[in-house]
C-alpha cells in the first residue's frame, strides 16, 4: 500500500457516504448523485490519475463499502485511453463487443451490460483494438437492466452516433477488467468476513454466542481463509498487473465468491436473508462480480493453457515468478 493517506481518506469518505441506507437507496433509484459527487469532489473518481496499485487499493476500499458508483469503470476508461476521462463514464465489457461497429466515426449497434448506462455521460468501448468514446446521450435507446446485486447493467442502443474520440486501446480490457473486479471482491470479502465474525460473537443461541460452536467456527475460519487469500492475491495482482497474477487472482476471487458467501449466509441464518441486514450488499455483489470479466473457469482455462504450454520444468518457476516467467 503505497499511499496511506489516500486510502485513509477514501475509507472515511466511503464509510460516511455508503451507509446501508444510502446503498439501498442507490439500488432503488438506479443512481446516487450524492455519493458520486462526494467522490468526484474529493478526487477519488479520477482513479486513472493514480498509480495503478493505488487505484486498485481504492477499489478494494470501495468493495468494502459496497460503493454503488462506477469507480471501476472510471479507472478502466482512463487506462484504455491513457488519460482520465471526464465522468461519470462507463465501459462496455468485451463480451458485448460483437454487436458494435464503427464506420466513418459513427458507432452503431447494441451495447449490453453497461454499468450505470442510464446515468453516465460517456461510454467507452473497444472495437478492433481501438478505444472509442461516445456520449451516452447519443444512445437512441436505453433499457434498464441490473446484475445480481441490483447494480445497473443497462443496454444502450446506438445508431450512427458520432464518436468523440478514437485511439488505440492502451491496455488489455479483459485483464484490466478482471483486475478491477478482483480488487472490488477482495474488499467485499474482507467486509463480509468482518461482519460475519462480529455477528457470530454477538448472536446468542442456546445461552451462548454462536461462535462458541465448533460447527460455526468452521465457517468463520473458511471465511477468513477466503478473505485472506483473495486479499493478498488481489494486492499482488495490482502490483504486477501481469496476465499470470490477474488470472490467478480473479480465479481465486471468483471461487471464493461461491464458498465465502455460502459460509457467511449459513452463519447468519435467517438474519442474512433479508435486505434489512447488510450482508446481502456484499454477498450479491460477490455473486455478480464473480462472473463479470470472466469467472473462475474462464481464467483457470487460460492460466492452465499458458502453464501447460510452458511445460513441466517451468511450472514451479511460474508459481514463484508469475508473469516474469510465462
Amino acid at each position, binding site marked *: 500500500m503505497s499511499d496511506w493517506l489516500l486510502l485513509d481518506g477514501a475509507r472515511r469518505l466511503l464509510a460516511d457516504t455508503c451507509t446501508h441506507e444510502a446503498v439501498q437507496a442507490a439500488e432503488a433509484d438506479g443512481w446516487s448523485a450524492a455519493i458520486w459527487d462526494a467522490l468526484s469532489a474529493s478526487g477519488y473518481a479520477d482513479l486513472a490519475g493514480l498509480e495503478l496499485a493505488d487505484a486498485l487499493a481504492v477499489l478494494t476500499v470501495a468493495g468494502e463499502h459496497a460503493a454503488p458508483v462506477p469507480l471501476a469503470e472510471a479507472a478502466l476508461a482512463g487506462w484504455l485511453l491513457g488519460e482520465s476521462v471526464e465522468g461519470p463514464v462507463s465501459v462496455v465489457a468485451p463480451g458485448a463487443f460483437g454487436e458494435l461497429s464503427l464506420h466513418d466515426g459513427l458507432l452503431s449497434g447494441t451495447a449490453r451490460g453497461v454499468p450505470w448506462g442510464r446515468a453516465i455521460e460517456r461510454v467507452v468501448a473497444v472495437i478492433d483494438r481501438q478505444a472509442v468514446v461516445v456520449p451516452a446521450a447519443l444512445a437512441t435507446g436505453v433499457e434498464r437492466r441490473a446484475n445480481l446485486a441490483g447494480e445497473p447493467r443497462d443496454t444502450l442502443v446506438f445508431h450512427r452516433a458520432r464518436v468523440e474520440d478514437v485511439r488505440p486501446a492502451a491496455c488489455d480490457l479483459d485483464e484490466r477488467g478482471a483486475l478491477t473486479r478482483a480488487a472490488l471482491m477482495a474488499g467485499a470479502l474482507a467486509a463480509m468476513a468482518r461482519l460475519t465474525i462480529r455477528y457470530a460473537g454477538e448472536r446468542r443461541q442456546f445461552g451462548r454466542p454462536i461462535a462458541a460452536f465448533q460447527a460455526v*467456527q468452521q465457517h468463520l475460519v473458511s471465511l477468513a481463509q477466503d478473505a*485472506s*487469500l483473495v486479499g493478498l492475491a488481489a494486492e499482488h495482482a495490482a502490483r504486477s498487473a501481469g496476465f499470470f497474477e490477474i488470472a490467478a487472482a480473479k480465479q481465486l476471487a471468483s471461487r471464493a465468491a461461491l464458498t465465502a458467501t455460502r459460509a457467511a449466509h449459513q452463519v447468519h441464518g435467517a438474519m442474512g436473508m433479508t435486505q434489512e441486514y447488510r450482508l446481502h450488499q456484499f454477498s450479491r455483489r460477490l455473486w455478480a462480480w464473480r462472473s463479470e470479466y470472466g469467472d473462475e473457469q474462464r481464467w483457470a482455462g487460460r492460466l492452465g493453457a499458458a502453464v501447460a504450454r510452458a511445460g513441466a520444468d517451468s511450472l514451479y518457476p511460474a508459481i*514463484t515468478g508469475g508473469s516474469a516467467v510465462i
Partner: protein
Amino acid sequence: MLFEATDLDEGELALQREVRGFLAAELPRGKFRPGLGMGAARDRSFSAKLAARGWIGMALPGRYGGHDRSAVERFVVTEELLRWGAPVGHHWVADRQTGPVINRFGTEEQKQRFLPAICRGELSFAIGMSEPEAGSDLAAVRTRATPADGGWTVTGTKVWTSGAHASDWFVVLCRSDDDEDRHKGLSQLIVDLRSDGVTIRAVPFLDGHSDFNEVSLEEVFVPEELVLGAIGQGWAQNTSELAFERGGPERWLSTYLLVEELVRERSDEFGERALLLLGDAVARWWGLRRLSLSVARTIDRGEAPAVQSALVKEMGTRFEQDLLAAVQELVDVEPVVEGDSLFERLLVAAVLTGPSFTIRGGTNEILRSVAAKGLGAL
C-alpha cells in the same frame, strides 16, 4: 489485515537461483527418486551437502553453527527442496523444529552440544508428543518423568513417531508433576534413542513403509542437563514448537510433484478438464505461497503469527488432498506399485499417504479451533 503482501528481494532471489542450480546439478531430474514433500527419503550424505552450503539451521545463531539468516531465506531454500522432491528426511525435524526450540528454550550447554551438530546435518531428531491416549489432546500424555539421582526416570509409550528408528534423539513431552491444571506439570526431555530402556517397534504405515514407530520407554534415565527449558513449562514450550511447524511450504507442496509429472508425461493429451485442473492448482499454489511467505516475513519481524499459520496449514493441507482427488478423477489409470512411470509411482505414494496431510502436526479440526479463537469472535 492478517497477511501483508511481501516480495522476495534481490538477495533472496539470488538464493533461489543458487538452490535451483544446486539441485539441478546434485539431483538431476530422472537420476534420482523424488519423494512427496516432507515425506521424501532420508539421506545423510545429501543432508551433509546441504549443510556444507549453509542450508541447514539457516536461521540459528552463527555462534552455534547456524547462519543468522532469516525465516524468509529458510522458506526460499525449503520450498525449492520440497518441490524438487529432494531427500530432506534426515534433517527435516531437527532443522524445522528441534533446532529452533533448543535455541529458544535450551540451556547454553544444550545449545553448544546439539545445535552445531544439527547445523552440520548430522543429528536427526524425532518428535515424542503423541501417545495412544493423547493425540489431539496432548495434555493427556501419560508418559511420566520421576525425579532420580542426577536427573529423571522416564516411563511410558510414544506412538506414531516418524523416523524414530533412524533418528538419534527425540524430545519427549511427559508429565513430571500432577497438577489440577492439566496444562501444568508437563515437561520436555531430550532423550537419546539408544538409551537403555528404549524399545523401538516399527508400525507399518498405510503404504507399507516402516517410518512410523512405537517407542516404549521403560525406566529410561535422563540426566538433569537434558531437561529442555524448565520443568513444568512443557505445555507452553510445546505450543510454541507447534507454531514453528505450521504455515510453511510443506503444508501445500505435498502433491506438487505429482502435478508436475502429470504435465511432463501427459500434457500432449491434455483436454479442457486437465487445463482447468492445472489452472486452478497453479492459482492456489501461487496464492498459498504468498500467504506462507507473508507468515515467514512476519516471523522475521519478531512476531508470532500463530493464527495466520493455523489458517495457512488448514487451507494448504486441504488443498493438497483436493488436488490429489482431482488428479485421481482426471486420469484413467489403475496405479501399479513400483510402476515404470514416475507419475504413477507418485500417484501411488500420494494416495497411500494422503490421509496424513490433514492430520500430521495437528489435525485440521484442532487448527480450526485455534484459528477461530484468534479471529476475535469470542
